Structures are given as C-alpha cells and as structure tokens.
C-alpha cells in the first residue's frame, strides 16, 4: 500500500482514482498517565504518555484509512492529511484522510 502526502507518487504512475478515504479514532490514556501529566505541568518537558497516545491514535487511524482504501480496490493513498483535536478531556482524536488510487 503506497502512502504519500504528495499528489502523485514519485516515480510511479497513477492509473485510476477512486475517491476520498478517511480514518479516525478517539483514544484516551488511563488516569495514571493523566496524573503524571498533571505533575509534569509543574516541571515542563515532554509528556511521554500523551506522545504515545498520539502515536497509537495515528497508527490506528492510518490502519482504518488503509482498510477503507483496500475495500475500494485501491493500492495507494495520495495527498494524505492529518488533523488532530481534543474532543474530550484527556482524550485525543486523530483524523487522517486522502485520495485512494490504483498505482502501476
């Protein structure tokens, strides 16, 4: 599965274009990590628990988008864009979308 955020895949030819695919996920970290983050608020620095959270979310959202692309018969997704937002306290929402294509 070709995944790029440019409009065409470098060195390959796009044969067919199928439409928009997207993946989204909302995840939360358990309360222990929230408490650690609260403490980190005092000293500053990377909130590793939440970074992990974003990475997991990103992975899951990408997997869902790829699943959608496969269901259309595509073998690549171009023009991938990410959007994150916080929909609930302590939870992060990640949305990824792109155009599903068939690549030769």
């Amino acid at each position, binding site marked *: 599965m070709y995944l790029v955020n440019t409009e065409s895949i470098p060195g390959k*030819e*796009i*044969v*067919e*274009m*199928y*439409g*928009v*695919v*997207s*993946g*989204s*996920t909302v995840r939360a970290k358990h*309360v222990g990590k*929230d*408490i650690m983050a609260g403490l980190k608020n005092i000293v500053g620095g990377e909130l590793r628990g939440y970074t992990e959270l974003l990475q997991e979310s990103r992975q899951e959202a990408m997997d*869902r988008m790829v*699943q*959608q*692309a496969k*269901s*259309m*018969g595509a073998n690549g997704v171009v023009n991938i864009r990410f959007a994150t937002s916080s929909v609930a*306290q*302590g939870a992060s929402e990640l949305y990824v979308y792109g155009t*599903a*294509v068939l690549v030769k």
Partner: protein
Amino acid sequence: MKLDYRQPDATVNVSKVSPLKRAVQLFLGLSVTFVTIYVVLGVLVNILAPKIPMSLEQKMGSAILNEWTVGNDNETVNSYKDILVKLVGEEVAATYTIMILEEAELNAFAIPGNIVGVTTGFVEEITDEEMIAFALGHELGHFENRDHIKSYGRLFVLYTMVNTLTGSDGSLATAFLDLLSKTETKFSQVDELRADVYGAALLYDTYGSYDGGIDFFNYLSEDYDGSHIVSYFESHPHPEKRVQRLMDMTELE
C-alpha cells in the same frame, strides 16, 4: 489517469463494540474496585486510628465545632457532668467536656478531642436521668472505640480516591461517592450497635437496670417515621433493632 469514483467501506471508523455493554462493564468493574479498595482501607484505618495523637484530635474537634453555635446553659452542663461522674467516676469524667449545641433536632455527638456534644433539642426532650445517662454512655462508647476517628479517616480516603480517579467531574464522582457512602453506613451501623452495648453496660453498673436505654429507644421509635428498609441505608440502625439488641443482652444477664 481515469477517475472511477467509488464509496469506501464506511463502517471502519466506528467500533463494533456495543457502547451500552462497555458502559455496564466499566461501571461494574470500577464499582467493585472502589468498594474493595474502600473496605481494605477501612480495615487499615481501624488499625491506625488508636495511634492518632490527642492534639490532632483537638484540632479536628475545633474545626467541627465551628459548624455550630455553642450554648452557655451551664446548669444543664453541670447536671450532665454529675451524671457522667456517676457513670465512670470523677477522674475519667474530668477528661471529657460537655457542650450544648444550638439545634432543634434531638441528637448527641462524639466530637474529636473528648467533647460530648448534645443538642438543645435533646436537652428539651430528654429529661429522665437514666435516659440521659444511657445517651452519654453511648457517646463514651464511641470515644472508647475511636469510632469518630475511624469514620473521618474512611471518609477522607473515600473522597480523595474518587475525586482523583474520576477527575472530580461532578456527575461521575457523585455516582461513585453515593455508592461508597452506602458501604460507609454499613460500617457505621456496626459501630453504633457496639456503642449501645458499651453505654448499656455502664448504665447497668450504675443504675442496676437497662431501662434507661430501652426507654430511650422507645422514645426514638415514636418519632421515627422511617421504615426498616430506609434505615438500612441510614448511619444508625432502626431504633426497634437497637431495643431488640438491648433486650437480648438483658436476657443474657
């Protein structure tokens, strides 16, 4: 390149798990966890309570007293003191202070710092010496068992735990606190019955009968409009049950 527009599988973005099932699972799981932690900590508190120093108790006591207006009915205080001396003797009675609190409802409290609080409602309604003696003895029983320390300890742990874990969001914390306060009343009813036993023993030693206690509960029953089911959730057992316990004790004598 050809555009062959298609629709994707739109169900991938929503989990197949039923939210209702998940909600029930989580609520039950968390409730069980909280109640277990609470009970365990309750036992721990029971072990630690006797080790609290008197100075700390007095601080707690003064904080609680701030909630009330203290009356200055010295005559009643002195007559109550006399009854207390009859029950436990001069020396022990001197370690306790009796205070009259302005409140219409009939009640008596064991306040940390060896303070026995009695409401003006109590003073007005209860005039029989043996009944007063039983009530005072009952409160002394709470002190003896350090019940007040234990219940404050449990409540403190309870609030801290629930508020930390649920992020003190109003609604969810309320639900769990409600649940745990039901557990707390169970602890409390046991303590109450034990204080009854203590008070009754003092009564018997001083006056030779349990009548003071029995009369007291009969008096409470008349006013008590709660059924047995409601009292299951109250901090004190139903007065009829307390009478029963007392009568059972008299059979044993």
